[in-house]
């Protein structure tokens, strides 16, 4: 699905600033994500990527700047409204973050708790999400019985269970072997095609960025250092930019 840039962005971050004491992590970071777009954000460890997404999903308060999701400034929303908006966001955590004490089915049903769905409806959605990641047979397993790749897939199934408009991927291929990483990248592409989502992908993985990105932003010292397509950025002669593609 090609991104449509002639409309308002589905996600907008403007002049985001966040400091921890004297450590200025984000110094005016700006981002716009358009409908149907796969936007990859790359940056070195400690460059503020995780802080940015934590601010975006409300796990951290920014010092300055605005965050808009689907045209709504999240700082102006009441907690209940923000929680409703959060159901339009899928989030794939780096470590999968599956709930240890729950089965795969319970993990997937968890985001539907506030949705007043019947058991049949919930189960149908669980099956649909598990089919999307090819793990229907794992429905009754506990997270400890799953391999790293399977955990990532189940986490992905949980992220898409409510059919969100935006999915945020935090290092989706980190810690996986190359073959499993490729499978996850393929799944991300399939999900974008089937669910018509927009994706914000934070990664160090150049292969992942090459395959999946429509556009990329390089984050250095808490600001947008460069922006463009993978081809444009990888052809750029700037040393700092080239460091990402070596």
């Amino acid at each position, binding site marked *: 699905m090609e991104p449509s840039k002639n409309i308002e962005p589905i996600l907008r971050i403007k002049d985001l600033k966040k400091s921890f004491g004297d450590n200025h992590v984000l110094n005016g970071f700006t981002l716009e994500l358009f409908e149907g777009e796969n936007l990859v954000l790359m940056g070195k460890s400690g460059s503020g990527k995780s802080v940015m997404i934590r601010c975006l999903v*409300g*796990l951290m308060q920014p010092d300055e700047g605005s965050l808009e999701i689907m045209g709504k400034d999240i700082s102006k929303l009441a907690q209940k409204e923000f*929680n409703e908006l959060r159901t339009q966001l899928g989030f794939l955590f*780096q470590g999968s*973050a599956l709930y240890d004490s729950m089965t795969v089915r319970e993990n997937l049903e*968890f985001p539907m708790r*506030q949705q007043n769905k019947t058991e049949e409806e919930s189960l149908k959605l669980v099956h649909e999400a598990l089919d999307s990641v090819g793990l229907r047979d794992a429905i009754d397993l506990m997270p400890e019985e799953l391999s790293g790749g399977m955990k990532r897939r189940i986490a992905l199934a949980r992220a898409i269970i409510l059919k969100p408009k935006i999915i945020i991927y935090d290092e989706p291929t980190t810690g996986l072997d190359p073959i499993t990483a490729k499978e996850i990248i393929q799944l991300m592409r399939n999900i974008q095609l089937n669910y018509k989502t927009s994706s914000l992908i934070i990664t160090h993985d150049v292969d992942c960025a090459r395959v999946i990105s429509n556009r990329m932003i390089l984050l250095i010292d808490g600001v947008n250092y460069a922006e463009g397509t993978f081809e444009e950025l990888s052809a750029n002669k700037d040393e700092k930019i080239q460091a990402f593609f070596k």
Partner: protein
Amino acid sequence: MMTTSQIGNKLVNFFTEIGELSYFAGRFFKELFTKPFEFKELLRQCYNMGNRSLFLVGITGFILGLVFTLQSRPTLMEFGAQSWMPSMVSISIVREIGPVIIALICAGKISSGIGAELGSMRVTEQIDAMEVSGTNPFKYLVVTRILAATLIIPLLIIFGDAIALFGSALVENLKGDVSFQLYFNKVFDAIKFSDILPATTKSFFFGFAIGLVGSFKGYNCTKGTVGVGEASNSAVVYTSMLLFIIDFIAVFLTDIFFEL
């Protein structure tokens, strides 16, 4: 040797933590009465805490009653007062030793368990995942655990007291030829309403403290896996300390209202 500023910093940290714990307790009461109510999770926590601690509390109570009676017997016999054994043991166990010892055992098992579980959920981003999915993790994880501990600890204490009295009766039966019926008749003659009410009331506070401190330490856990260990360990230390403070206040109030 610590400098004045180091002592000052320690005091500031201590009072900051007390303040944070009070805020955490305040948030518990606020969330307790707001919808949605997590009954299913509450029942699951009650079952987990009660069922998993039953054996430990039973064994502790049994040995407590057994040892207490064996140790007290020679002294009472010296004064020819062994017939006072059921009264003495039952009042001691029901009023003080039973609730305090069993609450301490539960601090070691339940409070540290909550601290470790929530701490591990915090560092593996499971709590963040709940929040991002639009669920209130405080309500789901913390309120249910504190409430479950508040409800279950008094039951465990009653169970532990009963087993302790059984242990004591067994010793009296084997060593003193006192029948179980006679022993328990004397126990029920000796125990009064003014023994049971304060003990039961304070056991609810013990349960609250066990749930509160364990949840506070686990929910605010930082520093990765090291932090999980610290959360679990400090949950036990702080809970134990808090239990003695609650016990002191409870005994003080009991003395005012029931004239010990």
